């Protein structure tokens, strides 16, 4: 009889090579398993390609100020640039900002958060001092220029009591480049502070997974705008805790996937304290064989009486082959609340289209006009008018190209 030796080789966990295995964050990560569509949280987003992608840490420096300036006029901002997960000191103005060089103390059971926490390369620590206003808004660029790079970014932003800040986050990938951008942003909006984040995603063929965790204190206001213009596979998870009475959260987004792109927005608003309001408006314009996902959950805890929570998700399918999966959820344990959500998916308003055509507007122009107006309901909520104008133009351009 021949002797055969069977060796059972455990399949390595994707990205295990990038974490610090001896740290508690590393241990935490190694105990998790790679999410599949059997996992409810990932039901509509397949990560198969990412799982087998050959990635490396890359220190390529290709991005120039011009590249950025072509998208957002930088003179109005304090610029901080990360490329492939590394800080570009040469392009950045770090006044009042520290580079984040420590591992997060939090142990997350979300796979990509845990990955970033256990292996991050860089990020910023921004603390807006009490009762001050951030004079120049921050333009925080997270870019990928190497098609094989993995970048893990961890940002921490705190707006201290009574302060006010606006941050524009630009997620950027060179048109040809792919790569994987994984980021975690932890936000602490202290009492009576106001923070507005506008996130522009122009991600080419890259895969981007973003996790944002927000704590909102008494009478503080947090607004987030996500404009996902291009991205092969984009997943944004925004988790907001309304911790104290009077806290306010507003989450908005427009996603315009085309080609075979897949854009997935998951929001979770946890009403923990009474008298908090939240509002969500996400709009999708989908063409070609693109897929959009919206999953918005509103949780209202037993103590969170007098909650007002409103959520809407509207989608236009411009192509027969596009797919939209919408899952608005309410989980409510308090009775004196006003919560509602609405979700619509369909094609453009034919009557409106006809009306415009009857006034002599060409069909393509009419479509562009209507779709831009559809997006503008979200865009017009951005407080910076310059930026709103810019975003509208970008959306219009994106639609024209498809």
């Amino acid at each position, binding site marked *: 009889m021949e002797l055969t030796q069977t060796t059972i080789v455990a399949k390595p966990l994707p990205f295990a090579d990038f974490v610090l295995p001896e740290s508690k964050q590393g241990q935490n990560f190694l105990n998790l398993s790679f999410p599949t569509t059997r996992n409810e949280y990932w039901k509509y987003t397949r990560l198969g390609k990412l799982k087998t992608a050959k990635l490396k840490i890359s220190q390529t420096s290709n991005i120039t100020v011009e590249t950025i300036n072509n998208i957002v006029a930088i003179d109005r901002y304090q610029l901080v640039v990360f490329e492939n997960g590394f800080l570009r000191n040469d392009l950045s103005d770090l006044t009042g900002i520290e580079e984040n060089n420590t591992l997060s103390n939090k142990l997350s059971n979300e796979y990509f958060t845990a990955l970033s926490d256990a292996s991050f390369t860089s990020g910023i620590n921004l603390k807006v001092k009490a009762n001050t206003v951030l004079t120049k808004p921050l333009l925080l660029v997270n870019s990928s220029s190497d098609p094989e790079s993995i970048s893990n970014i961890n940002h921490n932003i705190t707006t201290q009591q009574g302060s006010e800040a606006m941050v524009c986050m630009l997620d950027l990938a060179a048109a040809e480049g792919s790569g994987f951008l994984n980021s975690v942003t932890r936000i602490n909006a202290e009492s009576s502070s106001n923070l507005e984040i506008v996130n522009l995603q122009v991600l080419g063929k890259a895969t981007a997974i973003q996790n944002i965790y927000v704590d909102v204190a008494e009478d503080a206001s947090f607004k987030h705008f996500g404009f996902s213009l291009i991205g092969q596979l984009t997943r944004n998870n925004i988790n907001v805790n309304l911790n104290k009475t009077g806290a306010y959260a507003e989450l908005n987004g427009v996603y315009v996937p085309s080609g075979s792109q897949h854009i997935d927005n998951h929001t979770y608003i946890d009403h923990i304290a009474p008298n908090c309001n939240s509002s969500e408006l996400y709009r999708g314009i989908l063409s070609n064989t693109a897929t959009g996902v919206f999953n918005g959950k509103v949780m209202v805890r037993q103590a969170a009486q007098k909650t007002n929570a409103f959520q809407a998700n509207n989608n236009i399918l411009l192509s027969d082959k596009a797919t939209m999966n919408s899952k608005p*959820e309410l989980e*409510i344990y308090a009775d*004196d609340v006003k919560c509602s959500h*609405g979700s*619509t*998916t369909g094609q453009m308003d034919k009557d409106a289209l006809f009306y415009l055509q009857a006034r002599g507007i060409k069909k393509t122009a009419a479509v562009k006009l209507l779709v831009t107006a559809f997006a503008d309901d979200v865009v017009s909520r951005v407080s910076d008018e310059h930026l709103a104008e810019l975003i509208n133009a970008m959306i219009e351009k994106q639609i024209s190209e498809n």
Partner: protein
Amino acid sequence: MATTEKELLEKVTKTEYKYGFTTNIESDKAPKGLNEDIIRLISSKKEEPQWLLDFRLKSFEIWKTMKEPNWAHVKYPKIDFQDLYYYAAPKPKKNLESLDEVDPELLDTFKKLGISIEEQKRLSGVAVDIVMDSVSVATTFTKTLKEKGIIFCSMGEAVKNYPELIQEHLASVVPVKDNFYAALNSAVFTDGSFCYIPKGVRCPMELSTYFRINESNTGQFERTLVIADEDSYVSYLEGCTAPMRDENQLHAAVVELKAAKGAEIKYSTVQNWYPGDKNGKGGIYNFVTKRGICEGDHSKISWTQVETGSAITWKYPSCILKGNHSIGEFYSVAVTNNHQQADTGTKMIHIGKNTKSTIISKGVSAGFSNNSYRGLVRINKSATNARNFSQCDSLLMGDQCGAHTFPYIETENSSAQVEHEATTSKIGEDQIFYCNQRGIATEKAINLIVNGYAKEVLNKLPMEFAVEAQKLLEISLEGSVG
């Protein structure tokens, strides 16, 4: 105010379950537990053909490989499937020719249920099939229906008299493998109703089945099959009650509907299984699979349900809209009080062109209960011009209960128009005060407001059921205001 909220709440929880009596009828029970022998025993008791025994055994094999689902928003201790009786029939059981032969004790039971068969026969012209524990005991009006070519009988009789119809359609809408409870039901179902409406026939009366669980520790696994041939119409009603018992009882039914070209099936349920006592002890686990297929063009299936009973409800009456221009509807009122849990909703699968679906769900939660709407609207690539409208509202009474909405909306066709809306609110204090000022006491005001809230759904029920449903809402909810 004369009555405080607390007093009112106490009053509700003291409202006794009206249908909680047991009937002293000797019954014929198989031993506890589930194995091949039990299945063979059920099959032989029912004098079934070999193919059906084979179907059961195969289903049992499949069931053994499956796991209990755990995704619903409900919590309950693990069920020991070996600790249940799978067959219990009222005894003696002989072939009944007329109602006069029915056990008087049994008739008395039906009277207590408010469904005096005689009366129903005389007044409302509703044909009734009554299933007690697992076995169908009386079907009225069979002869009148026969003249039109309509078959309405117990599943057991149908297997004997119309084997080819059963063999063709059984498990064709809900496959054995569909889910854990469907597989279990396929292995052990004991009776249920069968209904066939021939081509072009409009069923002249409401067909109705009453289900009742009488024996303790009994699982009830009925199986209902309704087939509407081309251009036919039928309205089918189902009512359920069970005695008050401390231990939980399992009800795992399967209902299959098939509508051919131009046919319409209206299926209404008033579910009032024993919900358990105010501390959540006892009550029915209602784990039911209901699905209909609109096979032919221009066919229509409409589900209406009023769910007030059961400790736990896990139920998603669904429509597969395969035929072009077919229509699916789901109208639901689900009320939970005390420690009840309900996870219910629907699935509308659009496959055919120009298909349309409407979902109206009204949840009411009181006490310590949890009430979830879970629904799927899926527009397949082939479903050009599909339309869906969903409205899911929740009403909360008191701050110890929960109301949840979990809709899944999947759209793969750009010509589709899908709309979903949901709201959650409580009964307005200003509404109650307004009623008070007009002389209406708070408790009555709540009934008025809740019935108004549920009206869109109650209106869909046949008249005699609507009145019963309205009363049930009142009984389940008296006084619970937040």
